[in-house]
């Protein structure tokens, strides 16, 4: 569709969001990501039945952990759409980017820089 979405996003493709583990989300933040969002099929339409439901629960778990450790649970979010909804994909991308911009950089990054200095 050649729609534009922010180029600050790095896409990691998985066969199903059910493959995404809490550990992957945490590692992303550990390595300096400012935000992580998980995009899966519409609920009820998962190709593998309920992979997207598992993903949602894991995103919730990650949120809780990120809140406790001071990174912020708002930096991770789950979106659902169908593979034909290109426009919506771009929308979500912009929405997420805007939100992360508002929140500022991942505090881990700033803290690491300070330590190195």
């Amino acid at each position: 569709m050649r729609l534009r979405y922010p180029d600050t996003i790095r896409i990691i493709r998985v066969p199903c969001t059910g493959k995404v583990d809490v550990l992957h989300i945490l590692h992303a933040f550990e390595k300096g990501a400012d935000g992580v969002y998980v995009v899966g099929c519409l609920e009820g339409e998962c190709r593998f039945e309920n992979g997207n439901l598992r993903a949602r629960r894991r995103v919730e778990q990650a949120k809780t952990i990120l809140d406790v450790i001071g990174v912020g649970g708002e930096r991770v979010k789950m979106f659902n759409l169908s593979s034909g909804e290109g426009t919506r994909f771009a929308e979500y991308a912009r929405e997420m980017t805007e939100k992360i911009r508002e929140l500022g950089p991942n505090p881990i990054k700033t803290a690491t820089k300070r330590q190195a200095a």
Partner: protein
Amino acid sequence: MIVADKKPIEEVIEMVKGYQKILIAGCNECVTVCEAGGKKEVGILASALRMYFTNQGKQVQIDEVTLERQCDREYLEELRNTIDQYDAVLSLACGVGVQFLAETYFRTPVYPGVNTCFMGVTEERGVWSERCQGCGQCILGQTAGICPISRCAKRLLNGPCGGSTKGKCEISKDLDCAWQLIIDRLKELGRLADYEQIAPIKDWSTERAGGPRRVVREDVRQ
């Protein structure tokens, strides 16, 4: 198996926040099955703690290892050459493993990362429930395979009490009345008449009440 549950991260942070080099040690057996202390949980906790300490401006090294078991000396030996590098070990094994690790590595502070709960079964993924309290004198033959000591809130040997309602225990609608289960099973097995046999007073000396226990098998000892 032994069922445990993760300690809240806040509590774990409180325990280890004074240390600079921490080893998180998981266990490949029971706590892996109940998803509280296996390799994955070690990874998640390690990542979370690393980020926490970085955020706090502290330099803390957090390493990960998952042992086959922490209740057997041969597996704990794996740590022999590396343990002295660490100020503290956070063990995600059950209380048994935490203690054995502490006994084996006497000079290293060891902290528990999970709350050990009971001996139980996996009803379904994510739901574990208690089945045995290790009373030391199994009476399951008399109670149609259902244990009144671990599954009755009052451990009545001649139940049910007057609070049993619609097959549920008086303390919670989610808890099955053990005696309802026993009666149903006795019926199924054609042994309902056994219900009227009075179970005698129990000898609790083989249970916790008698003091910490040991099993010694001379025929197997080296």
